[in-house]
């Protein structure tokens, strides 16, 4: 008999958390039980966040940032979603940085906090477009991981020193409103005062999620004259 997908996803997440926090297995079980109570449906999302494809992609972002930015003391990640793994990857690359993850989904923020068992990151629940997040925009590095489903960042860029904007061409995702066709279109939308990097990454289909012809785009820029 085939196992229910939910059970499969829970097992995958359990295995991934075990690898991360092998010494705290009881707590891993507790975290999974709590996620069950909050939303069994989030297990798939969480499961995907641990997928090898995402780890590779996080590595691409973090390694590219390391080539252009030297030891930021503070990093803000806007629209972080279930981006705990990304936050931890950033922490690995920039170990001295205080990293704040901002997302508007209160349940996701709570789950991220639970999984971050060593308290390596900070989490803030706020809507980047409508709430006042200006205190976080002054960080040495601001990353927006969700430009594809947010109002264009053009107005907010002048408040940032150095930023890394991430978008996709994944128009088939129902929540996406602001996809770009290619990295040139993304640069054109953002119009950075100083462009440090623009590139793309092929998101490959994995056993956990089908991603047809999907690409992620990254623009790293700087604001020379800030508001």
């Amino acid at each position, binding site marked *: 008999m085939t196992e229910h997908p939910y059970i499969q996803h829970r097992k995958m997440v359990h295995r991934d958390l075990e690898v991360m926090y092998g010494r705290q297995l009881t707590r891993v079980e507790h975290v999974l039980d709590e996620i069950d109570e*909050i*939303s*069994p*449906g*989030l297990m798939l*999302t969480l499961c995907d966040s641990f997928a090898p494809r995402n780890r590779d992609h996080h590595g691409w972002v973090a390694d590219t940032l390391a080539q252009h930015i030297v030891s930021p003391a503070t990093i803000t990640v806007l629209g972080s979603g279930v981006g705990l793994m990304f936050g931890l990857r950033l922490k690995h690359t920039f170990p001295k940085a205080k990293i704040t993850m901002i997302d*508007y*989904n209160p*349940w*996701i923020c709570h789950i991220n906090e639970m999984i971050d068992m060593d308290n390596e990151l900070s989490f803030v629940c706020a*809507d980047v*477009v*409508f709430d006042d997040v200006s205190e976080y925009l002054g960080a040495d590095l601001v990353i927006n991981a969700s430009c594809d*489903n*947010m*109002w264009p960042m053009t107005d907010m860029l002048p408040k940032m020193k150095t930023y890394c904007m991430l978008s996709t061409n994944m128009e088939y995702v*129902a*929540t996406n*409103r602001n996809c770009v066709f290619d990295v040139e279109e993304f640069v054109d939308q953002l119009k950075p005062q100083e462009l440090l990097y623009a590139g793309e990454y092929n998101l490959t289909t994995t056993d956990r999620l089908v991603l047809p012809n999907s690409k992620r785009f990254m623009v790293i820029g700087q604001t020379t004259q800030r508001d």
Partner: protein
Amino acid sequence: MKWGTLYPAHYVNRLYHSLRKHVNCPFTFHCITDDATDIDSRISVLDLNQFHALDGIDSKWRFYTYQKLYTFDKSFLPGTRKVLLDVDVLIQNDLTEYLSQPFEKPTIIYNYWYEHDRLIRNFSNITTPFNSSFVVFEDDQLDMTYQYARKWFDKLSFSFGSLDKFLYYRFRDSFNFHPRKTVYAYNFGAEHPHDMEEEKFRPEYSVCIFNTSHGNGKDLRDTTDWAKQMWESYD
């Protein structure tokens, strides 16, 4: 509110007649419309075109039923208790006592038939558990939502695309909900997961909504059962 051609005047008239039957205290029934043809002469007709356009109204993104926001402006019927009803709702039972109580906060429909897990999974611009088919509010209680929408209309259209989503994602803590057993949905059910039969008559409820904006389910005019019979009884 009635705009465009989707709902003929008899929707408004039947709603008015149903309220006359089920609200036994003095009230004024206003219809904000761009076409008053065939509307019952006892109804106060307000010209939709007299309302000020919201900033960014020409937004290239859709803001579904933003027109309801006009009634949230504090200058609209100041100093009164307001009950905003969609024209395609069925009033089934007496609402006098319910509508006569104090409303400390604006009160809106929470879709109890909505799967909570779905909301958490899809917490974003594609879903909301709020439904503004039946909203009760006092005086200027909702003015902040109107002012907010005036300021951010374009961004709100882009980000949420509908009034119900806007109210949920930006103002959910400002609302109370109609109690359970008050409102159900003809096309979806009453309470997830145990009372979800579609098109079932639930006599203990006061209001039945049809909620066909998602393209699913039957509109009142397409029903052939108890709903049609009740609706036509309000002629």
